[in-house]
């Protein structure tokens, strides 16, 4: 990014960090240095130990052995406060903000002695506005955090670190939840920070970002550091291979015969949900043997569209047709029973029940039907067999079907969800951000499965913010913006730039999104 920083002094030194959880070694004698003004990308599969390492560095976990030194001084283990005062700032994978307080209050939290009679709001606001200006982090200090978008929340997290004069910024998968535009803004901010002498470690599964932003790459595999290299001296494919330990090729898209319309929305509208718009007179057809890509910045009505098709809400206006007929009762159960597979956006909150084991999670949508239950009595054997089948067929890495799913990595959780919906051989698959946060291996696997379903004649709706993913997989692409849906564009009929125009909200004639 800002040129190499070979001569710059070392600001952070990790020395033989080892951490075990029971029998598992999450970090195995990991050492590396971070220099002033340098950006290091930390790479690795899901569960490779990246977050663990960063939590140790920040003092939230205590390492079994090894040490962390910041500006030459060894940090006391297990003490976030010491890390903060030494100049380490961390943006967690899951944000640590209090929704009931304002941006300013979240930032000021913990920066002053607790027993002070009051705090200087005006001064704090002044300081925040300065930082906002210097780093290009637009956010209103007096907004309630609960009302912010994901991107804004992340900026608040970064501001929290900067407000404390952090010299080292750690970002754990910062772009996993950002829109492309927000990702660009984030990188712009990081560039400014580096120019001002800060050093950065960031974790990402998106290799093009790694190539674009970092100076150096550190790769972890199974808790061990397997490679450390200058970014300039490597490429995406090499990195992918280093991470997984084997070569990974993107799945090939074979031609498939287009079938009949499986599900269709005609002139459907739904009410707005708080800040997120509902659907506005949407027309959509999903045919067999097709992947329909839905491009768009998150929060533009994707959730509403997914929920309408998935049975969670019924259209306020317009009709939904399944196989040409309007279904009598539209509910998640009706959708599932009718052969619709749903892969939700948030696997932790809506996709699984973290404290249920794999077996119980596997039958979450099917428990009410034979063979999993009869007349209200569960057949646990059938459920276990089903879970075993998914574990084997979909390569879910876990100790066994009795493991609580909470203990699985995101990628393996996602594979279980994939398995549970695909095992019923659905003819419609709704996939909302199915590869978010997944490592390249898992991501490729999910894509392969979607393509395979298409190959056997299923229709797939793929919702994603990643335009590259959409362009690579989709037969037809729609763009969604503020609840309006663009016409469907055939594969290859639009360039990235042309779609970008639609993404920015242009091209939707007032009320005539049915212009397909």
């Amino acid at each position, binding site marked *: 990014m800002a040129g190499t920083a070979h001569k710059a002094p070392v600001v952070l030194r990790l020395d033989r960090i080892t951490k075990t959880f029971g029998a598992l070694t999450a970090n195995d004698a990991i050492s590396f240095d971070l220099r002033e003004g340098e950006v290091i990308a930390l790479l690795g599969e899901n569960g490779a130990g990246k977050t663990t390492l960063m939590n140790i560095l920040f003092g*939230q976990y205590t390492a079994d052995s090894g040490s962390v030194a910041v500006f030459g001084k060894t940090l006391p283990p297990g003490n976030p406060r010491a890390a903060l005062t030494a100049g380490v700032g961390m943006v*967690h994978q*899951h944000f*640590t903000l209090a929704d*009931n307080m304002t941006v300013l209050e*979240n930032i000021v*939290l913990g920066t002053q002695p607790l*027993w*002070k009679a009051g705090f200087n709001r005006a001064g704090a606001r002044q300081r925040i506005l300065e930082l906002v200006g210097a780093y290009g982090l637009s956010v209103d200090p007096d907004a309630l955090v609960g009302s912010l978008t994901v991107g804004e929340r992340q900026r608040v997290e970064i501001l929290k670190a900067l407000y404390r004069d952090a010299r080292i910024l750690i970002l754990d998968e910062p772009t996993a939840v950002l829109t492309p535009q927000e990702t660009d803004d984030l990188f712009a901010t990081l560039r400014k920070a580096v120019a001002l002498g800060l050093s950065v470690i960031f974790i990402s599964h998106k290799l093009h970002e790694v190539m674009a932003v970092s100076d150096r790459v550190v790769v972890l595999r199974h808790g061990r550091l397997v490679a450390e290299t200058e970014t300039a001296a490597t490429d995406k494919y090499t990195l992918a291979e280093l991470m997984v330990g084997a070569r990974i090729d993107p799945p090939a898209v074979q031609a498939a015969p287009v079938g009949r319309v499986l599900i269709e929305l005609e002139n459907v509208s739904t009410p707005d949900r708080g800040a997120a718009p509902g659907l506005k007179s949407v027309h959509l057809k999903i045919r067999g043997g097709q992947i329909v890509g839905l491009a768009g910045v998150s929060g533009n009505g994707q959730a509403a569209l997914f929920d309408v098709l998935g049975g969670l809400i019924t259209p306020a206006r317009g009709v939904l047709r399944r196989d040409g007929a309007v279904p009598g009762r539209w509910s998640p159960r009706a959708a599932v029973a009718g052969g619709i597979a749903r892969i939700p956006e948030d696997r932790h909150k809506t996709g699984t029940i973290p404290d249920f084991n794999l077996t119980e999670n596997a039958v979450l949508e099917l428990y009410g039907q034979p063979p999993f239950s009869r007349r209200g009595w569960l057949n646990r054997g059938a459920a276990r067999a089903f879970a075993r089948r998914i574990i084997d067929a979909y390569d879910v890495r876990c100790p066994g079907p009795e493991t609580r799913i909470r203990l699985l990595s995101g990628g393996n959780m996602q594979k279980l969800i994939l398995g549970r919906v695909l095992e019923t051989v659905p003819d419609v698959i709704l996939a909302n951000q199915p590869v978010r946060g997944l490592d390249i291996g898992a991501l490729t696997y999910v894509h392969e499965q979607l393509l395979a379903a298409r190959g056997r004649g299923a229709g797939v709706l793929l919702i994603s913010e990643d335009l590259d993913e959409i362009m690579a997989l989709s037969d037809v692409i729609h763009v969604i913006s503020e609840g309006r849906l663009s016409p469907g564009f055939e594969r290859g009929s639009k360039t990235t730039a042309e779609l970008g125009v639609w993404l920015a909200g242009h091209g939707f004639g007032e009320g005539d999104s049915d212009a397909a």
Partner: protein
Amino acid sequence: MDIVDILLSASFWAAAIRIASPLIFAALGELICERAGVLNLGIEGIMVVGAFAGWMTVYSGGGLWAGVGVAMLAGMLFGLLHAVLTVPFGLSQHVVGLGITMLATALTYFSYRLALPEVTSPPKIEAFQPLPVPVLSDIPVLGPAVFSQTPLTYLAFGLVIAVSVILYRTPLGLALRAAGENPAAVAAQGLSVGAIRIGAVMAGSGLMALGGAFLTMSAFNSFFFEMVNGRGWICIALVVFGSWRPGKTLIGAILFAAFDALQVRVQQTPLGADLPYQIFLMMPYLLSILALVVMSRRAQVPAALMVPFNKGER
């Protein structure tokens, strides 16, 4: 007298504020605990302890304010026990709370019986007397209603303001509110969630004990078994009613007390002669439930209420 006359009289509002005072203390205490993320069902027992400790101090020769101090300390002690079990050890707040209520109540009765084995009529102390505020107490209606109360009532009102200021205007208050909303946010800023929660539960329990002490040192002048009589449970409702805000909780307490004062008076109207007295006693509870239905849409529950926080575990 008809209801309108009652509602317009200063003595009615004076009674409402008297009845509200112990509730204000204890509800504020519960509010502090819950804002930090801990449901404190020990409230009923801690009020009993406060009632006894304060009264006993004065009875054995201490000053009234010394009694107030001892009551708070005793409450904080049980708060500490509650906090140690629920915060670092993360035990169920339901069980610990009810256990503390049982323990505190039984220990109090046990101590009372040991201290005063031979008494068949509980001894009295010289309790707090009404202290009219100069000038202000001469305001019509408001004067006799609000400014002719005992010092403890003024303290209760003062505490509402103090707690509001602390919660919304100080670093400590920020940390406290954050601990009840998202403890990870507190930990990530280098503060100890455990220390904040323990502190909050102790402080809150101290206030609950004050609420109990009000009963024996201001509302009345001797200690009786079972005299707290469910007031603690009411306070839990008041906190929800007040959407976890001190000001609204105060209003809730006064409203509840006003219903109570009103039912006593309405019982003597012709209406009262026809209806069973239980209907009147039910009124404050039923109206509270009704009020909750009306209020609930806007209520903001602390997101981490009843969720223990253990770093390194999930």
